[in-house]
């Protein structure tokens, strides 16, 4: 099913600076990122007829952003509930709206003060409003690093995954961030630095964890034909998939070493008409090092259980066979809940990634949180329009 293949394009990318304390509202972040993305595309606010975002009670919806920007009417909007697992579904749905003729110019945005205002999971706000929290929070278990530590241990138990495997991911991504002026962490680290970093929740250390970040990012989605008339070379949305069924909390998903990505990947690749071997660069959701490791397996870059050795082999480095998280990822660039992975993929496919450019990159995979914690995941395959 070719579905949305190459019918729409990302025509603009905008950022606010990333920081630990933006000092401004999420509305201000959103407006700045939206305007920056439009400027990048060579468009103005007057061209916007649709807005799309996702949030978990921590940001501003389209019906607040639109009047703030003086957009008199949006013809389509998306205010998706959810965190990182739906980050790429927002762009997928925007592409669907454009392909269906419901919208012409959609700006997708995510704006969060994830360090200074709303930190992810249990920092005084108590248990997350999630159905199965009742079985976990009373045991002091509710924060994302704890959950991913539990999944990591399960993978270690099943496949012998090691701390060194995880550490190689952190070290590799930091080396990429050194080449990224936007990145919050730009000091190189060694495997020894990683192994010396303090425990957060064993088996995860501080350097396994992403950076809680204040910031926003926005993307302009429009038709392929229209994008070809705009300022930047179009980056085509070649494949888009989202969905899922299992909840890793309990009940139906009781093997924590396989994620929703394993089920989503075949239909994503089929829509784009490519396979893992065609991917030139992969921006894999890295809330924690382990989520990269397990996605290397579930998106088919190596066999189940081989994610650790594969990552440690150098394959995921900028000069490896599959450069991963070329901007430094959430671990080192910053964490805008998924959307900055898509923005980096666009830069790589435009050939504008500077010192961290993967030569000749034409096809990119960008992924959301692979379905742990809440059910479902989402991902995009993008390609240059050359």
């Amino acid at each position, binding site marked *: 099913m070719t579905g949305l293949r190459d019918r729409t394009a990302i025509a603009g990318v905008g950022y606010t600076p990333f920081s630990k304390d933006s000092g401004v509202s999420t509305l201000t972040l959103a407006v700045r990122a939206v305007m920056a993305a439009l400027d990048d595309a060579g468009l103005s606010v007057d061209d916007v007829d649709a807005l799309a975002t996702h949030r978990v009670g921590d940001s501003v919806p389209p019906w607040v952003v639109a009047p703030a920007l003086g957009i008199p009417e949006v013809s389509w909007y998306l205010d998706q509930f959810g965190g990182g697992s739906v980050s790429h579904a927002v762009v997928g749905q925007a592409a669907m709206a454009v392909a269906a003729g419901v919208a012409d110019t959609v700006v997708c945005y995510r704006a969060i003060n994830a360090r200074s205002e709303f930190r992810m999971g249990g920092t005084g706000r108590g248990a997350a409003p999630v159905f199965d929290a009742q079985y976990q929070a009373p*045991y002091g278990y509710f924060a994302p690093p704890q959950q991913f530590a539990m999944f990591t241990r399960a993978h270690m138990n099943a496949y012998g995954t090691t701390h060194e495997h995880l550490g190689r991911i952190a070290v590799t991504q930091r080396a990429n961030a050194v080449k990224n002026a936007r990145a919050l962490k730009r000091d190189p680290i060694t495997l020894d630095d990683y192994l010396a970093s303090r*425990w957060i929740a064993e088996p995860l250390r501080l350097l396994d964890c992403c950076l809680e970040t204040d910031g926003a990012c926005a993307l302009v989605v429009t038709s392929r034909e229209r994008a070809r008339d705009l300022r930047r070379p179009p980056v085509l949305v070649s494949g888009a998939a989202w969905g899922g069924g299992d909840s890793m909390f309990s009940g139906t998903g009781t093997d924590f070493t396989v994620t929703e990505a394993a089920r989503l990947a075949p239909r994503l690749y089929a829509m784009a008409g490519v396979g893992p071997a065609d991917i030139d660069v992969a921006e894999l959701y890295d809330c924690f090092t382990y989520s990269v490791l397990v996605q290397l397996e579930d998106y088919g870059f190596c066999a189940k259980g081989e994610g650790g050795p594969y990552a440690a082999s150098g394959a995921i480095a900028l000069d490896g066979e599959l450069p991963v998280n070329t901007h430094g990822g959430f671990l080192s660039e910053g964490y805008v809940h998924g959307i900055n992975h898509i923005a980096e993929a666009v830069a790589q496919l435009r050939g504008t990634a500077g010192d961290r450019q993967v030569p000749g990159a034409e096809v990119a995979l960008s992924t959301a949180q692979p379905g742990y914690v809440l059910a479902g995941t989402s991902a995009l395959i993008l390609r240059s329009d050359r």
Partner: protein
Amino acid sequence: MSLRQRPRPQADRDSAPWWAAVRRHELLVQRCAGCGTPRFPARAVCNRCRSLAYDWTPASGTGRVYSWIVNHQVFLPSMADEVPFTVLLVRLDDGLGHGDDLLAYGNLVDADPGVLRPGLPVEAVFADVDDDTTLVQWRPRR
């Protein structure tokens, strides 16, 4: 262990009978009246046969360690004096296996986390937090 300072379980309408049983120091699981499949956590419907009918049946109270963490970071100020603490994920012995396992969380009690290994047999222990709340904890089987 200052269990009193922790978040309280917020039961929903499906799980309220389960928590009430825990309060009586009974560990229950649901059993589908249509196909007999055991289920936990509490749900209104069987995901195998879609029957809405079920019974509450006593669980064995035993299980095997699937995964665990040793938490060091203070995520809640009220738990600052508890770190490091261990959280277990246990496969109840009542599950059918092969993807139909029943997973329960809890803290490790009466043992050091150094004893943990995949598959370690454990048994449920009931910890009364206050006049309203009891939690299920786990210790290695003797």
